């Protein structure tokens, strides 16, 4: 048993340092001693291995207490579903894009856009002559719609067949939000036999803007007539009917 104590002291680190060299030398020169060292190492290893399952079981209980089970299948499932998820994301992006850029606009929105782009600033003749019509247009372009309307109404009062004044009076009334008045002016405008008469188109535009009960249906019908009869505003009417 003495050799085992000597070996134990070496591996526990309690052997005097100067003895370590002799210990190693004995392994090389004393086969029974080397056998004893090998036995000691194996015995320690066998004891350690005996403890491993117990310790692992203890760890397993700790792991169960602290964690939800992580299944190996879960990442695989996620990986399998990844292409479908990516396709769904792309489809959703396309649908959102289509909704944002291509969604059907309401007639009121179409009318708003048109009024903003085409009627908020009216063309002014560049000549020096300062007539009543140009004054009215200038007032409108400066945002003074009420004054502009008075100017145009005054002109109509002086000349009931001044279809240009009637047209501008309707446009200004529309922008003032007085739709009934605008409709009256545009209905009057339609009575004139002109080479190019936007009366019906503006009438439809006003209905679209007002969007009261039955207005949209009537506006649609008028726009169809504008297209069919090749009236002024035909191109715009076609576009709107496409988005209706």
């Amino acid at each position, binding site marked *: 048993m003495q050799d085992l104590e000597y070996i134990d002291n070496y591996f526990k680190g309690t052997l005097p340092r100067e003895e370590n060299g002799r210990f190693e030398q004995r392994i090389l020169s004393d086969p029974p001693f080397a056998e004893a060292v*090998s036995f000691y190492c194996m015995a320690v*290893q066998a004891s350690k291995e005996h403890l491993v399952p117990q310790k692992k079981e203890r760890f397993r209980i700790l792991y169960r207490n602290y964690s939800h089970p992580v299944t190996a299948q879960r990442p695989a499932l996620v990986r399998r579903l990844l292409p479908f998820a990516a396709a769904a994301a792309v489809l959703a992006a396309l649908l959102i894009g289509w909704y944002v850029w291509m969604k059907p606009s309401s007639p009121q929105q179409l009318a708003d856009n048109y009024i903003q782009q085409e009627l908020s600033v009216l063309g002014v003749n560049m000549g020096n002559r300062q007539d009543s019509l140009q004054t009215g247009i200038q007032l409108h372009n400066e945002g003074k719609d009420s004054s502009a309307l008075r100017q145009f109404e005054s002109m109509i009062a002086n000349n009931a067949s001044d279809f240009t004044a009637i047209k501008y009076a309707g446009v200004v009334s529309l922008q003032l939000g007085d739709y009934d008045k605008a409709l009256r002016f545009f209905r009057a405008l339609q009575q004139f036999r002109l080479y190019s008469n936007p009366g019906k188109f503006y009438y439809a535009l006003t209905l679209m803007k007002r969007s009261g009960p039955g207005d949209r249906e009537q506006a649609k019908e008028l726009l169809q007539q504008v297209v069919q009869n090749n009236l002024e505003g035909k191109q715009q009417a076609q576009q709107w009917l496409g988005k209706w």
Partner: protein
Amino acid sequence: MSYPAKSLYPTDQDIIRNLSNGNRRKGEEDLFNSYAYFIKEGTRKYRLPEDEAFDAYSDTVLSAIEKITRGLFEGRSSLKTWLFQIFQNKCVDLLRKKTTNKSSVHQTASITDMLFQLSDSSKTVIQQLVEKSDFDLLKKRLSELGATCQELLHLSADGYSDREIAAKMEYKTADVVKTSRLRCLDRLRQLYKRT
């Protein structure tokens, strides 16, 4: 994963202190809990089933405990970095073992670990003797020893000092433990040689 925040765990210093100075069980459990999320890493990074990732992590913790108790952790990196390095090696070993079925390599490697302080020539002699021995028979003989003997040998192999064993098993002194332990070892040797 429902592991609590890292700040709720003891520091690396606490773990090492507990493993080295007596409160072994707490040290072991704290070490295991602190980095148990590595198991998920094993399933994700190495695509191991959870059970195998758990085994790799448990082996990692056991190996780390042994090194720490023997004073072989030098603290040149954080405990986490060091532990993760061991864990990665264990995962790779496991994958290799699965593909080549070389499970016997581990046993020799573990004994070689014990021999780290020997010179190469002495180490070679011991390794050759170990390879010629019947390790399974020795394990069988170990299980035939009395319960007290087994416990003495297991605690000692687990890194407990004779003083700690004395306190744990209610021996009077560490010297008594040492004498009893060496007697048990001698008894095991006789049993092993008899066959």
